[in-house]
């Protein structure tokens, strides 16, 4: 067991390392003259050249990379030229927002998917199941950005709650009710997508588990259906659910960005896109790195949890 953990951690470090290289070169290999942007329009070539040298951009790429990595290991992700604020700080401000959206959306998703999947699994192909399954399959085909647009349409049009305009985000600290209000749309949008995945996975796994002999035996003991579902069927099926959750959450981090951007919520996604639009390459680099590492970390944690729940999996 310990060997397994150590092996995975080493892999983790290796992957993170490679990702850092990837993020760095991705940005640096792209066209775009950073000095022109910083100096602004009408900057003279001479000034640009000076700035170029100042920023160390004339040094070979791999040297720049090592400088960057070195800084990171000292906790310094650099200071953005565009915004003049520390990259780490910007990220630090934006990250908790993403986390909150994620947590809220996942709670919503699980809280709806689990009971509904159980209901469906109990009577497969029954009316309830057909509706749920057809509904969730349809939802699969509706990308998050459309969900956002339609939800906004519904909310503003039908319910008359204005929701356009600049940042409508309210931080948790200042007003938690307002915070939940502003988080509601993004959380629901992401929850819908996650719900679909969780529902389908759990339903099909539960149906398979319910056909096992030990379920019949449990029935024969005179135990209630609810107890059988939760205590006997859910446990083995939760493995599949966890697996799906790991993959899904990993993707959410990246995919939820668009939703943020659309709803003017200043999370990492919003920040990233704004950074791209302003050619703030240092910030982009930092965000790409943080997000990639985050995704890898999440996958790692989930693998770990799955392993604890069902040790049979670690023997690959």
């Amino acid at each position: 067991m310990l060997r397994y953990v150590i092996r995975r951690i080493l892999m983790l470090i290796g992957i993170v390392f490679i990702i850092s290289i990837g993020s760095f070169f991705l940005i640096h290999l792209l066209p775009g003259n950073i000095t022109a942007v910083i100096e602004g329009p009408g900057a003279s070539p001479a000034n640009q050249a000076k700035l170029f040298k100042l920023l160390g951009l004339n040094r070979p790429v791999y040297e720049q990379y090592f400088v960057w990595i070195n800084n990171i290991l000292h906790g310094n992700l650099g200071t953005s030229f565009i915004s003049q604020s520390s990259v780490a700080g910007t990220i630090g401000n934006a990250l908790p927002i993403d986390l909150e959206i994620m947590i809220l959306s996942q709670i919503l998703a699980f809280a709806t998917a689990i009971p509904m999947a159980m209901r469906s699994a109990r009577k497969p192909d029954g009316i309830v199941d057909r509706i749920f399954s057809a509904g969730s399959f349809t939802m699969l085909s509706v990308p998050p950005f459309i969900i956002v647009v339609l939800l906004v349409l519904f909310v503003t049009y039908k319910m008359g709650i204005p929701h356009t305009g600049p940042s409508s985000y309210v931080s948790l600290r200042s007003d938690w009710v307002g915070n939940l209000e502003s988080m509601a749309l993004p959380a629901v949008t992401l929850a819908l997508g996650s719900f679909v995945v969780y529902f389908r996975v759990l339903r099909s796994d539960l149906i398979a588990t319910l056909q096992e002999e030990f379920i019949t035996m449990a029935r024969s003991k005179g135990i209630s259906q609810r107890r059988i579902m939760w205590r006997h069927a859910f446990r083995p099926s939760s493995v599949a659910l966890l697996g799906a959750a790991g993959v899904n959450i990993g993707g959410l981090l990246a995919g939820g960005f668009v939703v943020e951007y659309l709803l003017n919520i200043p999370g990492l996604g919003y920040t990233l896109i704004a950074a791209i639009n302003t050619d703030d390459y240092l910030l982009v680099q930092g965000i790409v790195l943080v997000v990639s590492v985050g995704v890898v970390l999440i996958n790692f944690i989930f693998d770990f949890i799955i392993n604890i729940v069902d040790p049979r999996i670690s023997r690959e």
Partner: protein
Amino acid sequence: MSDVNEKLLVVSDLSTTFATAGGPLPAVANVSFDLNRNETVGIVGESGSGKTVLSRTIMGLQPRTNVTVTGSVLLNGNEMVGAPESFKRGLWGTEVAMVFQDPMTSLNPVMRIGKQIDETLRVRLGMSKPDAKARAIELLELVGIPSPKQRYDAFPGQLSGGMRQRVVIAIALACSPKLLMADEPTTGLDVTIQAQILNLLDELKERLHMSVVLVTHDLGVVATRTSRIIVMYAGRIVEIGSTRDVFTNHRMPYTRALLESSPKVSNASHTRLITIPGRPPNLLKLTEGCSFAPRCAYATDQCHQDRPELRPADQPGHSFACWNPLPVTRGELAS
């Protein structure tokens, strides 16, 4: 007929039909028999004879969808057919319990065995946690598991096949049911262990005053442990009577074929195993007439055209379904 209330189990004209993609499948058809208290009855037949479906239907454990059950099953006066699940649940464990065939799949692999026994006690008898645990350990001891206190925390995967089956028996007996359905309880276990488990069952049923329905394809198993035997073929009863009658005075050729085809220790070594020619019928495409006729050495035209009903034989309680039965013999095939 004796008072119905005296009998523990009365099965009348029971039929179980599955709705499959290929059409209706009559797994069990028109089965009737009864069982007294403290009696052990054996149900024998090949795979596909419907014996397992029968045992599950009697208990009410058949799947809930795409299955039709007609007829009546009176368990201690309680009608099981058509009863809602909640009603049946009230009887499961306390009135009737089942021992399943494969302990590896019938025990929850990720739950400790102690807990699996506890569950029954706490849910059905309302015992407290410590009481349930104590009783569970008692039960483990009762079924012959050494060091029950330690084994209490074991997972099924950590036990041997025989041990697991003992656990299954312990679970079944936990609430002292009056009827135990044992569905091929020893198939798949080592031969030496088989005897142990069967002996354990014998012992327990004496001590706890239980009736047992023993379902198996192995005649050796039922020879000495049952008072009556039901022979099934293609979902129907083809012969029923006391164990002695079925072994020595059987009339239905299938019964004889079954008896002859089981290997006997008394045979000389390298004796050819007699097999029954042909294969059991496809239940989806049953023909008219007796289901065994295509394979029967004594089949007549009538056998192929009309299906025989159960007719009483000379001995009381003994009936068979055959147009062309074997002649009455005296002690030809001693068990």
